[in-house]
């Protein structure tokens, strides 16, 4: 296998766990190195690319939306897909999406099933499963 490919399974929902930030950093680093990346988002992780997420002001600090510049996971995912130039395949588990009503994902995210995860893993240099605790 000449071209390197990493498959990463994510399960944590957005804004809940430091695992998400670490996973996004791994994906960004791999893409910058020219490595193909497959992501299989399972359970709450299907909400990571949810388009309905909105940045918010911080009434405690008195900052506006612009001043707060609150990062959203949908923005991170969209930017990773853009920088990947087709080398990032992000699959949301379809049943997990249906359960959560999380259909409105950013462009480039596709619907799949655990069978896709198996195919991804079989065709990859390595597979990293990041479970919830």
């Amino acid at each position, binding site marked *: *296998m000449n071209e*390197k490919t*990493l498959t990463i399974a994510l399960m944590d929902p957005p804004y809940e766990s*430091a*695992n998400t930030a*670490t996973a996004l*950093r*791994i994906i960004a*680093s*791999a893409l910058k*190195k020219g*490595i193909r990346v497959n992501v299989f988002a399972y359970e709450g992780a299907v909400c990571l690319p949810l388009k309905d997420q909105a940045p918010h002001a911080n009434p405690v600090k008195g900052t506006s939306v612009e001043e707060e510049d609150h990062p959203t996971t949908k923005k991170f995912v969209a930017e990773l897909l853009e920088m990947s130039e087709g080398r990032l395949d992000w699959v949301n588990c379809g049943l997990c999406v249906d359960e959560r009503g999380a259909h409105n994902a950013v462009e480039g995210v596709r619907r799949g099933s655990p069978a896709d995860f198996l195919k991804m893993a079989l065709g990859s*240099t*390595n*597979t*990293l*499963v*990041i*479970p919830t605790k």
Partner: protein
Amino acid sequence: MTNYIFIETRDPFESRDTRFLVETATALKERGNEVTVFLVQNGVLAARRAAHGSHLPTLSEAGVRLLADDFSLAERGIGESEMLPGVRQAGIDSLVDFLARDDTKAVWH
């Protein structure tokens, strides 16, 4: 020989489950494998010299390579001079290099 990379996210002072890491990584090393532990998130708290009872010296003595994520260290205000001997700072790029090697098994903990 197989390469193993353990990605340790847990703080040993919060989770006794880090014993799993010591026992598994040490056993794999004893069987002739190359074993690396990459500490990230609260996992880097064990890398402090002041962390009495840290499980990391046992791993280091067993020949396990210990790396600590520079971003996680910086987030927690842990400087290089405060770290245990045997633990080296590394970036996320180093972790990706390990993951992209052939014959490497990755375990997130």
